[in-house]
């Protein structure tokens, strides 16, 4: 531990009396500096979350044909029970889990591979490739989804047409192919983004390490595998957490793909289902579904962090 750190640690154990007055004196400026962050944070972040949770605990009460204005009544957890009791909604949760389980590792492997290639000293046209790999991310997600939906649409797809010439029957929007098609759209759109984060981490590795390893007779692959990959582990953890959260919120791709693949159901992903509940004027159900989804994303990303932290300690 450095001296500076030790001093900071020592500062924590000042006698209770002085700590109290110090806090009081410092309190006002601290609040002043925090306010520009805290006020919008509370208004735009905490309040909507609170309101969503609140809404999820109520339901609309109507009588008869329901032609008079409905009243809101407390429903406890019944909206959650309904959502979880809905086989379609459960199916949508399972679907994003499975898509994420396959797509996220695959995408990060490709991103890592590309980043390592870009970082390799012998790679030519680094700037060009860095931009080329990143370019799909520069396209708005919806535009990418529209483009891909035309590339896979039955009757219009050049991919299907090319496969047909090779004697293959390929329907990229059949029920079985929907998940791989969406996974492909995600991978295409997000690999470059993740690559850039990993690449930045690679850039921060001191060149001496590689040089020393080369002197010791380590191959380029060996350097990548034994030195670079372990050192960019935090970047990989970060991109994985981002990807888990992102996949849990899968919406653009299935929603756009639905236009050309009517067999893609409107409860394909949890957000899609919640959006439909809003459209059906069932805000309370949508709120419950949103909270369930948020919890799922939280548990998965937090669980992943815990998992790697524990492993990190053992290493």
């Amino acid at each position, binding site marked *: 531990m450095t001296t500076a750190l030790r001093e900071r640690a020592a500062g924590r154990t000042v006698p209770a009396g002085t700590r109290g007055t110090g806090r009081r004196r410092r309190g006002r400026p601290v609040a002043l500096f925090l306010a520009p962050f805290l006020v919008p944070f509370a208004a735009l972040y905490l309040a909507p979350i609170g309101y969503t949770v609140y809404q999820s605990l109520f339901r609309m009460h109507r009588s008869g*044909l329901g032609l008079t204005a409905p009243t809101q009544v407390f429903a406890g957890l019944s909206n959650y029970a309904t959502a979880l009791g809905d086989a379609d909604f459960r199916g949508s949760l399972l679907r994003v889990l499975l898509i994420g389980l396959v797509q996220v590792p695959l995408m990060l492997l490709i991103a890592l591979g590309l980043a390592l290639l870009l970082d390799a000293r012998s790679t030519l046209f680094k700037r060009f490739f860095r931009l080329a790999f990143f370019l799909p991310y520069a396209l708005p997600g919806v535009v990418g989804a529209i483009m891909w939906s035309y590339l896979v649409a039955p009757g219009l797809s050049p991919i299907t047409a090319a496969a047909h010439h090779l004697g293959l029957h390929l329907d990229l929007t059949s029920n079985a192919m929907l998940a791989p098609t969406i996974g492909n759209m995600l991978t295409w759109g997000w690999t470059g983004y993740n690559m850039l984060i990993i690449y930045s981490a690679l850039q921060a590795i001191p060149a001496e390490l590689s040089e020393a390893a080369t002197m010791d007779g380590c191959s380029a692959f060996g350097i990548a595998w034994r030195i670079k990959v372990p050192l960019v582990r935090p970047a990989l953890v970060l991109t994985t957490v981002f990807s888990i959260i992102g996949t849990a919120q899968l919406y653009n791709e299935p929603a756009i793909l639905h236009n050309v693949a009517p067999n893609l159901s409107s409860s394909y992903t949890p957000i899609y289902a919640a959006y439909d509940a809003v459209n059906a004027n069932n805000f309370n159900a949508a709120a419950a579904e949103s909270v369930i989804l948020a919890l799922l994303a939280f548990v998965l990303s937090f669980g992943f962090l815990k998992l790697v932290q524990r492993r990190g300690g053992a290493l």
Partner: protein
Amino acid sequence: MKATSRSLAAAIAVLTAATLASGCSSSGSGAADSAGSAGGVVKLDFWGWAPGYDQSVALFNRTHPNIQVTFDKTASGSKGGYTKMLTAAKAGNAPCLAQVGYETLPSFAAAGALEDVTKYAAPGKSQFADWTWQQVTIGGQTYGIPVDTAPMALMYRKDLFTKYGITTPPATWDEYAADAAKVHAADPSVYLGDFGNDAYNYAGLAWQAGAGWFGTAGDQWQVSVDSAANQKVAGYWQGLLDKKLLKTDPSYDPSLYSDLANGTVLSDVNAVWDAPIIASSVKAGAGQWAVAPMPVWDAADPVYGNDGGSATAVLKGCGHAKEATEFATWMSTDADSVSNLIKVTGIYPAATAGLSNPALSAPDPFYGGQTIYDVFKGESAHITTNWQWGPTMTQTATDLGDGLGQAGTDGTTLPNMLSTVQSKTVAGMKQQGLTVAGG
């Protein structure tokens, strides 16, 4: 991280905005109304998306100095317009008037978003066909004024029908099935028609067969999506799908128009408003197209279906329901307004006098110079009258659209799908606190 999180954030922001707005909504139906009445001029807001409505509004404002309507263009109903209107109604700051499709009107009513204008609307009733008035009336209460209707017809390629030996367009569904087989046998890559995934187009087919989906008995809703009459309709189309006699392009999709253009699909059973859409989407074959009445179940007693049409609804909290109804009635019945709506919006008028509007007797070059609206006018008098939409149509239509899109994949069939839609609809209605008979 992903862009999708932004849309969620936006949704949450909208919800928050709605809550904030509801906190200060005690002043009634918006600032415009209250400010307006003070000066003796009633100001009304009107939300809708159809092109040309603004011109009718301008006409009205010119001739009615005491009522001034402001038309605000929203996203189309299914693309977020309805959600916006309902959210505004919930927040207590909805406009006085809104463009609402017949199919969505009961959902608005069940959300408590509509103003009962029965007494103001009653004098105008005689200017509309009974079945159109039925579309704005739920449980005996009127909530708006019909604007347009959408009788369905068969739009087809005359030259290609002749090529495949169909001399007269199929008049009955039996003939339609026979012709579908004939065409497909002559060339396996060619189909008589397309079976799309649009729930409301399918509803028009059920409507025609008298296979109603909803009804009211006292203060209970009735749901009969999987009734015997509905099973008959579903069975008919499933039969054609089983024999692979129909193309299954998604409704209104580029692939369908590409098939219509290159002669892979020869006809489409669709609503009056689809005639100009086909004309603008399928430039190839212009002049070779024609419109015939949609096939019927019983040639001796031809009845037809309707797919679409909308009303000008008066929303809850409107402080000037009388003036709002006056405007809505004027917009749907005034000759100049109707002419404008026919020409610019492309509506097929709901007012019976509007059916004789000169704008509807122009020969259409795309349809070989045919005066196509004569066909729709002939049908209009024979549209099944007792069709009633349900209070959770968005959900029903979504489930039905899913089912139609999946028909034929993984062994799902249309009759099975109807049972699923029935049970989901009943469950959805109950979840929203509505009383459902027998469910």
